[in-house]
């Protein structure tokens, strides 16, 4: 089957998966809402179109919300490309955000430098954390999946410990840190929305990751190892080192996402648990088929649905958590290799026949 046709097929398959997910959402809405029509309207239209006009503010908020998902989505792309099922994004996001906030509060710096340093230190924190599951995998063959899952909780409790024991602002009701210096905060691109300057950074990160994965020897090596480890070893690649690097990059991207989210959306650090962006990143990466360039679009899609679900819960009383069900359904069908496999097989056979015909023609025409 030709590559172009293959891509068309994949797109069609993806659309059908999304359609199924939306259909499931419809069913759930009809089952749970007194006024399904308005609920649907909230889910699908209201995020962009409110009372007869384009709702710019809502659109910008959706864009803003894609920011952390883009980072964690990219992180998963890099790690999954190397065939590493590292699920430690959650912990890296939280730690990155927390450490960045601490730098923002306690290490005064000049205006431009402060925010950059905070984000960078958050990024490094995320990367360092991932060294643990990565090294355990490469050196001891311990499942990176289980160890990274456990690590999420360890990181969460350590952060909560420092938050509560050392850095809490006791004058406030809810546990949170003292406010971060204004020099460390990431400004809003448009006031009154959730769109911060973190969003363009996420887009730049996307481009950089895409370049890294497709235009540098390291990214190339990561991808080849993910496809076929034996081949990579035989070709002379340093498999162990690259597996560690891929996970450290994943951690760093997650950490950066956490830092930018905290510095951009809050004045104090106040997460009381894992923020969930790590898991959303997984859905985003699956939707994007591990292709970094598609990550912002996948994130946009999820953020849109997320916003729709939120509006639905406000105006139609349908719980916002429906987003998780929709995500799960998309996720399941997107990752299902055999979903529509019969159709694909038919296409392959047809394509092969055509190709053979072409080859015959080429042979006749050529000097063979």
């Amino acid at each position, binding site marked *: 089957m030709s590559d172009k046709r293959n891509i068309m097929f994949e797109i069609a398959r993806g659309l059908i998966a999304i359609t199924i997910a939306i259909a499931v959402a419809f069913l759930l809405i009809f089952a749970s809402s007194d006024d399904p029509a308005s609920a649907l309207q909230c889910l699908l239209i209201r995020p962009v179109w409110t009372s007869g006009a384009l709702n710019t503010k809502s659109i910008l908020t959706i864009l803003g919300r894609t920011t952390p998902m883009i980072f964690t989505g990219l992180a998963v792309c890099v790690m999954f490309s190397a065939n590493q099922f590292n699920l430690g994004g959650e912990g890296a996001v939280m730690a990155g955000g927390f450490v960045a906030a601490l730098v923002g509060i306690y290490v005064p710096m000049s205006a431009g430098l402060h925010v950059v340093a905070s984000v960078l230190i958050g990024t490094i924190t995320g990367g360092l954390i991932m060294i643990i599951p990565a090294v355990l995998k490469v050196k001891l063959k311990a499942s990176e999946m289980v160890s990274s899952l456990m690590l999420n909780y360890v990181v969460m409790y350590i952060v909560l410990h420092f938050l509560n024991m050392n850095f809490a602002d006791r004058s406030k009701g809810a546990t949170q840190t003292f406010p971060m210096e204004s020099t460390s905060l990431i400004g809003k691109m448009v006031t009154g929305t959730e769109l911060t300057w973190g969003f363009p950074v996420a887009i730049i990160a996307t481009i950089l990751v895409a370049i890294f994965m497709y235009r540098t*020897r390291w990214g190339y090596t990561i991808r080849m190892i993910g496809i076929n480890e034996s*081949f990579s070893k035989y070709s002379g690649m340093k498999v162990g080192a690259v597996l560690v690097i891929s996970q450290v990059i994943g951690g760093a991207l997650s950490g950066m996402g956490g830092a930018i989210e905290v510095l951009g959306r809050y004045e104090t650090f106040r997460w009381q648990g894992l923020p969930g962006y790590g898991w959303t990143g997984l859905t985003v990466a699956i939707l994007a088929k591990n292709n970094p360039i598609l990550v912002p679009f996948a994130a946009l899609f999820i953020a849109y649905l997320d916003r729709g679900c939120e509006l639905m819960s406000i105006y139609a009383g349908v719980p916002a958590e429906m987003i998780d069900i929709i995500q799960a359904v998309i996720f399941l069908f997107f990752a299902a290799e055999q979903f529509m496999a019969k159709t694909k097989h038919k296409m392959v056979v047809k394509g092969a026949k055509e190709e053979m015909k072409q080859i015959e023609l080429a042979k006749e025409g050529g000097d063979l």
Partner: protein
Amino acid sequence: MENNEYVVQMKGITKVYPNGVAANQGVDFNVRKGEIHALMGENGAGKSTLMKMLFGLEQPTEGEIFVNGEKVHLSSPNVAIAKGIGMVHQHFMLVPSLTVAENIVMGMEPKKGLFINYKEAVRLTEEFSQKYNLHVDPQAKVRDIPVGMKQKVEILKALVRGAKILILDEPTAVLTTQETEELFKELVHLKEQGYTLIFISHKLNEIKQITDRLTIVRAGKSMGVHETATTSKEEISRLMVGRDVVLTVEKDKAQPTDVVLRVSELEYTNDWKKKMLDKISFDVRKGEILGIAGVEGNGQKELVEMLFNLNIPDDGEVTVNGKNVIGVPQKDIRGYGVSLIPEDRMVFGIAGTGTIEENIMSDRCSDQKYNKGPLFNMKAMHEDSDKLIAEYKVLCKSRKQQVGMLSGGNIQKVVVAREFSAEPCLIIADQPTRGIDVGATEFIRKKLVELSREGAAVLLVSADLNEVMELSDSLMIMYNGKIAAYFEDTSVLTDSMMGEYMLGLKQQSDEEVRRVIHE
């Protein structure tokens, strides 16, 4: 009506795999009741495919199968088992952590209420074990028993399920001499009790020793049925090892100079404690093609692994231009100028879902030529990939096509393009044209000769006689982990001479073999 003399009749069997490979073409195969019937042929001749169809693992594209005179449709192993056919696979189908008795009764466990009647399972195992003189320890875990006993377990598995016709797929490949002797006694014992045995092998001595009749397949076609007693080993060897179509490759006489690859006293014993390499020593010189012929499984695979650090030998040395390669990372080995066309191209040769370009660049992605600072120099990459795709005539739409979507021949051309273009001083070509079309085969062979004449040392390992005889300047034959023969000049060789060394009928003296070392 079918002839009752035969318990198995396969008539006009043709099998074409979905990828277009015709493994069998109009094969007839008849087995008499109560005989030991040998099915012989080189690797890839189609004997395994034929037996897979008899055991229901594959369905014939054309042809009919009769068992005990009744036409059958063997849609799965279960159906074959029900018809009294059992198969002892070359790779054991056993669960290591289960006991012998558990392995034997699996799928038909005797029960006592809700539970397995383990005592009954042991009793059943013992009963069959004694009846057929196949001694096993029913309570031992399979992972703890020797290979020979594992094979008995496999045979018992079939017998317990009521098999009257047993297919044994190269049963002696993993056995020591003593174990083989023991197995043969047991097989004869089974035959005496009225069982029919189909024995797949390419070991002439064994065939002569225990079989009644033999069928030879070559290149998917039957070469006829013969009485073992009245057929000489030489004749069998001639029928089995022969060339059908001879693709000739023109080449000048080699003018070998310095030694590039030196292998000395290489020894390796595999996990089954079988000695795969027994003090192998040889040299390959600049400008020559040294061929290694031999039936597969005589140590060639292990030898190649040692040359590229894909495995570590027990003892011995391997040097390339004087530099050690044992335990050296592949990147450095490649840096010494070694290229390898791996035997299994899908496992080592390519990254299937990668593009053609990505597969061509795998060994050179960090070369200065292809990098501009931290970034790839895409222009240089595109140029060189396009050049190689054109030069090696890879039939594809563009360099961006997924390599796994190409045909076998074109996949191999991609591998070859990469390996040959690395300016190697030593090329190790392991089965370089296996299973690929004639056009690609001819192309790759020509390239090999060309490169050797330009000064590369080439080590060609091939089970394809055509190939080794046509391409090699000098040639050695491996048998049982040793060098059975060395011929400085291949032009004097004939198929039958080769066959005798390949099948272990003859062995050159140490003196003669040592000529392959050039001081």
